[in-house]
């Protein structure tokens, strides 16, 4: 079936098998592999995207459900003037190791700071509790969130 999606402000079309997730369509049909596939069951946050401004796991959204709604992925965060402040902060704070969780965490952090520009450590932890990272032990990710909040 053919679906139309609004991704990062662009109208895109794709022919999909009906059971495909938004994540699969972004990655394999639309050439946007920034959202990562690590668990396919909403237990890791690596595929976090914004759907009408809400943070969701793209693996749990049926692609066809996203029709008529706005999708923003990690690829859509950086502006014309360069990196999103959250991206710059993750790079600087050492919050990136293997980087597989990074796009999801960057999207989650951008979403958090949009709503709460100066989160406490507890608020950061709870907001990020759906994004698993296996490399960093999270400390430098918290640093990055605070760094981004301050910029």
């Amino acid at each position: 079936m053919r679906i139309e999606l609004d991704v990062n402000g662009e109208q895109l079309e794709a022919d999909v098998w009906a059971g495909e997730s938004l994540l699969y369509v972004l990655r394999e049909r639309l050439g946007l592999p920034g959202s990562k596939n690590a668990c396919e069951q909403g237990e890791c946050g690596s595929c976090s995207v914004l759907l009408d401004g809400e943070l969701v796991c793209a693996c749990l959204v049926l692609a066809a459900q996203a029709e008529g709604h706005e999708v923003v992925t990690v690829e859509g965060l950086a502006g014309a003037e360069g990196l999103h402040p959250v991206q710059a902060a993750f790079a600087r704070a050492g919050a990136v190791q293997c980087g597989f969780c990074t796009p999801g965490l960057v999207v989650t952090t951008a979403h958090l700071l949009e709503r709460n520009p100066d989160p406490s450590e507890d608020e950061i932890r709870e907001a990020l509790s759906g994004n698993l990272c296996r490399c960093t032990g999270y400390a430098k990710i918290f640093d990055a969130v605070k760094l981004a909040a301050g910029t």
Partner: protein
Amino acid sequence: MSAPPARKLQLGRVGETVQRVDAIPKVTGEFAFSSDLFAAGMLWGHTVRSPHAHARIVSIDISQAVPMPGVQAVLTHEDVPGAKHYGLEFPDQPVLAIDRVRYFGEPVALVAAEHPEQARRAASRIAVEYEPLEPIVDAERALAQEELHPNRPTSGHGYREDPRPNVVRTMVVRHGDPDAEGDVSVSGVYELGIQDQAFLGPESGLAIPDGEGGIDIYVATQWLHVDRDQVAPCLDLEPERVRIHLAGVGGAFGGREDLSMQIHGAMLALRTNRPVKIVYNRQESFVGHIHRHPARIWAEHRADRDGKLKCVRMRILLDGGAYASSSTAVTSNAASFACGPYAVENALLESTCVYTNNPPCGAMRGFGAVQTCFAGEAQMDKLAAALGVDPVELRLRNALAPGDTLPTGQKLTGSLPVAEVIRRCAAIPVPEPDGLPRDAIRLPGGSGNVTRGEGVRRGVGFAVGFKNIGYSEGFDDYTAARVRLFTDRSGGLVAEVHCAAAEVGQGVSNVLVQVARTELDIVDDVLLAPHTTATVDSAGSASASRMTWMSSGAVRLACAAVREELDRRGGSLDPGEEIDIERIYRHPRTTPLDPETGQVTGERAHVAFACAAMRVVAEVDTELGLVRVAWIGTAQDVGKALNPQAVHGQIEGGTAQGVGLALMEEIQTEDGLITNASFTDYLIPTALDMPRVVAELVEDAEPDAPYGVKGVGEPPTVVSTAAVVAALRAATGRELARVPVRPEHLAGL
């Protein structure tokens, strides 16, 4: 006297915190991980796996699958072009099962189709008739059951002869008088479950036929050249016709030492003459790589009245699962580090690994030392309690020091600042407990909202651990690096570094660049070439905390040679002129351990060592058995921190994996079948489970290493499980002899 050449590169040298070379593409989403690859005309591969832990294959019928929509190839063991078996060290594992499956999830057949759903549908039409056999699932009983590998693949390699069935390796270390008595003796039996690496990027890769019978494989791996050397014989190709290129690696931790989709993808690609991508899903990933060995450990520690260790006796039984992988080296490591970083005059250490039908086990961060550290440190705490001595003081009294002899007879000639890491860690101030009331997420049970402080007790634990840096026991180890010096269009002098060192997230790319910037500070820029087998010799494995040491040694050698050549040519290059030099670096040689006594046969069996001490504060809901790790302080022996921010990152991440093993991580099995192959039921720590880690870097230069560096990835993982459980014992007063500790055990049920 001529003036020294002007240093052009002012920043980004060894010892400085330098932003990762791949940081920007990783934060923007542009970085290509192995699962992100795409090629025109690409097919999707799918692996059919055994639903049994042990069965005879009666027949495989692919006839229903072949005509399914979109299907381009269906392959079985009959289609393996060359050698039917492979293995990291011993070729005991079939590329595709032939007449028997030995573990749950063992690959049996392959499908390539236009769409992954078509591949799945076709795979479900492959009819494999199995005759289930009784699975061997208990490591102790395996020693008396039918041989899973009657040809004994690991026998005849210089290991101790152990005639018992299913032994992968037995290692016995006899040191001094193993019957020496002490004034006090403590003993215990300890157990560790199967831990998974749980890297976030599942196994994946893309195999592209070159049109001339050869193949290019883009894959996430830890050692490109050893992959090539396993893949080529199975494809019946010369090694040069198999080129392995590193694709973005989503974490490794030992789990990518063994092959996953490499041969399978190549077989499908060569058969269809089209690119083939294989991506495991999470469930498949749990059977797609080896795990940390589960262990049972019987320990007895004897000491004199002053707390000096007189004798350590330990028997370690490791379950290696169905195939050998790196089990023989893990077995030896478990024995080598069984006594911990303590001076012990007498010891009897027996370590045995067996084949079973449980999930195959091999390398994972800490590599045998995690298991014995958990047991040994529990023993040290028992000893401290029996003697009425402070646990930190007891450890200081026994701390190994340079010049001491290890139980293997190896004399400590290099750096191992055990007492210093203990003192530095113990000196980090432990914070006061947080007051009440506080939000549920800062209490045991977290967002579950189970307590407002009821039943919560605080405990403080301390542990020390150590392990080897680099490959051991005479392994012929080296790392190659190649540096190409040329002038760019603007006339600038550029160095391009080639090294096949696998960047798995640990930051070795920065090491390569920072070393080149340090050694070739006359250049204008340093570039990093892709990691591949195509342009440079082997770098060895991103394993055993060896890669920083080895690759910095190799790059430094190549840079020195390039600089010398540049000087010979007068200090500059003409446009179009280049210098291209490859150099091989080797660490001090090691020799095997004597198979009868476990004693060194030369100067050293291990290259070098690194240690760490850790203190953990945990809050335990003693009625529900739930935990909040409130604080962690650690001091780690790092030799020299080449990139301090990255070193801290390794310590924090390595600690988290040990916290996971202590509290929640275990692959559960029932008759060899994995029952929790998902992130719903295999739990790893979240942002609410890890405290900040206060880490002190102890820089005590390793004399044999470039810049005095040591690997830093493993010591925090070795020590943190032991330290966390020590804190839980302090909070509950319970023995807690098994990890992961379950709530019912903490609650005393």
